[in-house]
């Protein structure tokens, strides 16, 4: 596990991956805080041997299915009731084209 301290550039890159705009003050404040947190969790890396199975979930449940039945669902009006913007029974979103340029 990397022991290099987390820089504000690292934090900026991670925040960008998570689509969060951080202020310069936040970058300054978060880097040392996150570094302390990461430092304190590194202890788990060496604990378990290769033979230990990972646990992702506490229950021994897999593939829970329900019957494929038609049921009532939201009307368009209900689904759009909380939308920041809507138009013609659809969610209205900012432009999505030309982003790759």
């Amino acid at each position, binding site marked *: *596990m*990397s022991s290099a301290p*987390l820089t504000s550039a690292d*934090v900026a890159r*991670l*925040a*960008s*991956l*998570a*689509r*969060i*705009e*951080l*202020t310069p003050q*936040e970058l300054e*404040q*978060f880097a040392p*805080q*996150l570094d*302390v*947190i*990461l430092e*304190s*969790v*590194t*202890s*788990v*890396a060496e*604990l*378990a041997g290769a033979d*230990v*199975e*990972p*646990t*992702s*979930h*506490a*229950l021994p*449940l897999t593939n*829970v299915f*329900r019957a494929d039945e038609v049921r009532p669902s*939201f009307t368009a009006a*209900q*689904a759009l*009731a*909380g*939308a*920041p*913007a809507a138009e013609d029974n659809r*969610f209205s*979103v*900012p*432009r*999505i084209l*030309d*982003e790759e340029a």
Partner: protein
Amino acid sequence: MSEILTATAAELARRIATGEQSAEEVTRAHLDRIEAVDPKVNAFLAVDSERALATARQVDAKRSAGEELGPLAGVPIAVKDLLCYQGLPTTAGSRMLEGWVPPYNATVVDRLIAADMVILGKTNLDEFAMGSSTETSAYGPSRNPWDLDRIPGGSGGGSSAAVASFEAPLAIGTDTGGSIRQPASVTGTVGVKPTYGGSSRYGIIAMASSLDQPGPCARTTEDAALLHAVIAGHDPMDATSIQAPVPPVVEAARSGDVAGMKIGIVREFAGDGYAPGVEQRFQESLTLLENAGAELVEVSCPHFVHALATYYLIMPAEVSSNLARYDAMRYGLRVGDDGERSTEEVMRLTRGRGFGSEVKRRIIIGTHALSSGYYDAYYGSAQKVRTLIRQDFDQAFTSVDVLVSPSTPTTAFRIGERIDDPMSMYRADLCTIPANLAGNAAGSFPAGLAPEDGLPVGLQVMAPPMADDRIYRVGAALERAQASAWGAPFTSQIPFLEA
């Protein structure tokens, strides 16, 4: 009126069912109480007076018509603002969802309604349930009725404060790493996290889905059990819901018989970092339980000391994934949509503005733990240690019926004391996290007051999956032993906050 407020939920239900007191009168008393003391406590984010009174009148009408009423019919309840309830905003304590009104009910809410319970309103919490003090709420911290300068615990501090300040006899909380139990501990109330899968997560805003679990908050063990029985049980809308009968929690809470029960004391949860008064009251609780006929056994769970570190990898990983849904497109806040900015720019601005610091820190840690090159070392290792923690429980439960520890290492800390030091805040959940990682049932019960500061201490009881009834059995035994040792039940010590 204060007599209504200090009565137990069981007693209120009895009076309402016999017609001795109307549900409307009981509801009105609690709404008046909220109006009088909530400016000081800040337990509620929304109060639903009209609908609460209308529901109460319906219960009274049902009774007059001779209809049979459920065990908590007409009893008021507060609901953590993380559960969807149509007709009221659900904010999760965040600016991101300010004013958002859900189009459906959580299953737990539907069950409260079906049980004819009276929902008073929604309670404050740390933002998206991330915190141990309610200080990360975008709507200001709730305050502990034992000392208004101190935290009521978190994330469910609004629910614990509401119950401890007699604004509601019951409340719903949710527990991901201790958010029901730690608030119960520091407010001198009862809080239980059911077995993972024992109560439905449907309609509850997700934080870490493999850990989240709703449960009851109350002032007595029996009241918590009655509420547990109302909300628990299989729900086809939750794929992780267990298809099995609800454990006999009410019977256990009424019995309180611990004769011959083997109680394991977790050796690792003591010593450095534990307040002297916490250890003293913990030891006293053990003595009371032993005198009641339980057998005490010291057990070692060697991996529990790594639970906090394990949790702070697994939980943020799940958080970073779950909170990706707040993308400013379909609901919630949208910032900077000026017709020029792209979807992605609007998304970044919205998430930057809408989330508070603690939520951002956890999303960033989770993103890091799941990123290529770090995944195996962080998330993969944590999942393996999660297995070791489960095995510690399995091993312990071959020789004991339940495990006990202090619920949290200290009494309520001061507002502002830990907010700039995330690691010290996280340590409040040191003892509660193992049960979330393993999916076990666990609860916190009042153990008395710490002599050094006069503040409440909690005893945590942990049981195997779907043996939730054992928790209530121990809680009830402790409650009774305290009442006879101290001459009065612990609840009589809860201060009645003046308006």
